[in-house]
């Protein structure tokens, strides 16, 4: 589903490359943790998947397409196949929960009738039924992240990319979010999650790809965050 072939990324303003000769192959339906300290290249890895950046060398394949060679007008099509969740939620403060989720469908031109049926479904799935009319500031952090996940998943993407989704949440709330991501994974959606949260990685026991200074230093099935239990 996602394949990095000898991918390097060098930002112009920086001395050392953000990614160095990275080779990673992620299958359809996998759940992969991307771990490593700040500045190790996790975010660069995710940005390359979304074609927010181009690799300096090497090929990035996402959903069967060579992302580096994708013409710019095809990029939106790629991004519709990928849901994205961030540490800071990125909700629109002046829109309700329902409107925030519906927005993602409206801007890709989905018909109103479709929106009216799928948005309540996905809100129920993430556990926000009854809170459709709330505004983001009326919700807890965990609930806001659920809205963001609902928005990312409402179009049923094949891939869900999460950049430290639990970074702003307390441990208990984080577990709830992880359960939700696990449920989404069970529907067949490939999930790549960058995280610093050792506890979560150790509990969930999924594949772990560890980056350090832009190099893949570990790629382990059912791995732990950084040390053996």
């Amino acid at each position, binding site marked *: 589903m996602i394949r990095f072939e000898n991918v390097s990324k060098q930002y112009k303003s920086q001395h050392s490359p953000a990614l160095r000769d990275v080779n990673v192959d992620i299958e359809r339906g996998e759940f992969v943790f991307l771990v490593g300290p700040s500045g190790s290249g996790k975010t660069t890895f995710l940005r390359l998947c979304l074609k927010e950046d181009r690799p300096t060398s090497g090929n990035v394949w996402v959903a069967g397409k060579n992302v580096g060679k994708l013409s710019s*007008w095809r990029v*939106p099509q790629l991004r519709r196949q990928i849901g994205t969740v961030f540490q800071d939620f990125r909700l*629109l403060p002046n829109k309700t929960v329902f409107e925030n989720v519906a927005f993602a469908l409206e*801007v*890709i031109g989905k018909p109103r009738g479709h929106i009216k049926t799928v948005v309540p479904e996905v809100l129920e799935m993430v556990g926000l039924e009854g809170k459709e009319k709330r505004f983001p500031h009326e919700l807890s952090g965990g609930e806001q992240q659920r809205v963001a996940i609902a928005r990312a998943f409402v*179009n049923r993407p094949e891939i869900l990319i999460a950049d430290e989704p639990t970074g702003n949440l307390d441990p208990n709330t984080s577990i709830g979010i992880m359960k939700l991501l696990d449920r989404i994974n069970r529907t067949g959606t490939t999930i790549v999650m960058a995280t610093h949260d050792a506890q979560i990685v150790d509990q969930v026991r999924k594949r772990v790809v560890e980056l350090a200074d832009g190099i893949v230093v570990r790629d382990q099935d059912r791995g732990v965050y950084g040390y053996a239990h």
Partner: protein
Amino acid sequence: MRAQFVASEVWQGLRRNLTMTIALIITIAVSLALFGAGLLVRQQVSQMKGFWFDKVEVSIFLCTKNSQEASCSGPASEAEKQQIATDLEGMRPLVQDVYFETSQEAFNRFQEQFAGSPIADSATPEDLGESYRVKLADPDQYAVITSAFAGRPGIERVDDQKQVLDKLFRLLDGLQVISMGIAIAMLIVTVLLVGNTMRLAAYSRRRETGIMRLVGASKFYIQLPFLLESVIAAVIGAALAVGAIVAMKILLVDRFLEPSFQFTPFVGWETVWVVSAILLAIGILLAAFAAVVTLRRYLKV
């Protein structure tokens, strides 16, 4: 494509940047109105040129008994008149038409022009004298006539009406250049202002556009509300400009100039409508152009 969604985005955008929107509309209106006025003056000048150049004549005034000029020694003789007529005939095709105006005709015309004024009563046909009215195929060639006849015995002076008209047209041309210059400066200001407004709008909506990108909205869909906003401002501005030139036509031309200067034609409504269409088109094109160029820079997709 969801028209209702786009419309609500556009409406919100216009309201959020209300002061900038108003500034934009006023700038567009003023610059287009000036530009339109320039176009109307230009049309007016070319219409007047066509009308008057058809009518301008070079007048060869013959000596009268009162003439003081060195070339005159009493009224022009029959032989002198005959020579002038033959020479004029010889200058065809430059000379298109020659008309001999007798003293009596000149007197009648004079009486008509100055009817009611004391000068009309004091003049006699002899005072006015005879003249050849020469119509040229190309009014710009009057110098040929002047050099051939000025100073010849029996000729008091050679008058070219075009020289008088040229002064008027130079004045009008000058006005037109000034109004066009101001209009172009204003149009440049408009383009920059549209650009700046779009930049502000893109910045104030960076959250929305960021999310739109992430969920895979097309570039067109992301930029369309911004583009429509500037085009709507342009249409409103152009409508105000059209209102201004229509007011100019009614208040200045129809109510004031036309009754006061009945001898010359003025721009008609069809010209006003053509100019209006031009203004609308230019307003929309400039606003869209400025918006697209700015959005390419500030709204990366």
